[in-house]
């Protein structure tokens, strides 16, 4: 009874992990696609935030379900990924705007 339950649970975890990985991949591709278009720089940064931060976080959650032996490092990767990428988007936006606001002297 118990092993069957455990096997069922692990099968459920596998399915959930596959779903999360696929969803993350969809976010990746959908978020990277506007980079090829002609939108403004800041609009592209919005989409890049979706693809990199949110999509990669979903993928890391999927990996966490599948690979529980190394959970501390995966959790650290998740935490640092979300914080770094978000702040990185802010730095890219702020730096490019500052360069545009103070045009170089002729």
């Amino acid at each position, binding site marked *: 009874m118990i092993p069957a339950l455990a096997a069922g649970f692990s099968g459920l975890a596998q399915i959930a992990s596959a779903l999360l*990985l*696929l969803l993350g*991949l969809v976010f*990746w*591709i959908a978020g*990277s*696609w506007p*980079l*090829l278009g002609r939108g403004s*720089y800041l609009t*592209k*940064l919005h989409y*890049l935030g979706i*693809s*990199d931060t949110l999509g*990669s976080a979903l*993928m*890391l959650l999927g*990996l966490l379900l*599948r*690979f529980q032996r*190394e959970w501390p*490092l*995966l959790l*650290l*990767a998740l935490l*640092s*990924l979300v914080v*770094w*990428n978000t*702040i*990185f988007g802010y*730095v*890219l936006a702020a*730096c*490019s705007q*500052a*360069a545009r606001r*103070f045009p*170089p002297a002729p």
Partner: protein
Amino acid sequence: MSGLLFGMVLAVLLEILVVCRRTDVWHRLAAFASVSTKVGMVMLVVSVVRDDWMVGLVGVIVLSVGNGSVMLLANLLQGVER
């Protein structure tokens, strides 16, 4: 799993195409940062597929400190452009 890896490599190739095409340096910087994150994720997935945690460790390190250098570059570039 290999289908997933195929899709991930496709997404990275998309970004590399953007880097090759654009001339604006800020677009390039954004695309390069995105490539760095994505390659780190590809490393983690490869490590799970091969069940070899050493590759995954490198991936975790790339994810946690790889963006710092690009951030520094952005600040430098801002100073140069001003």
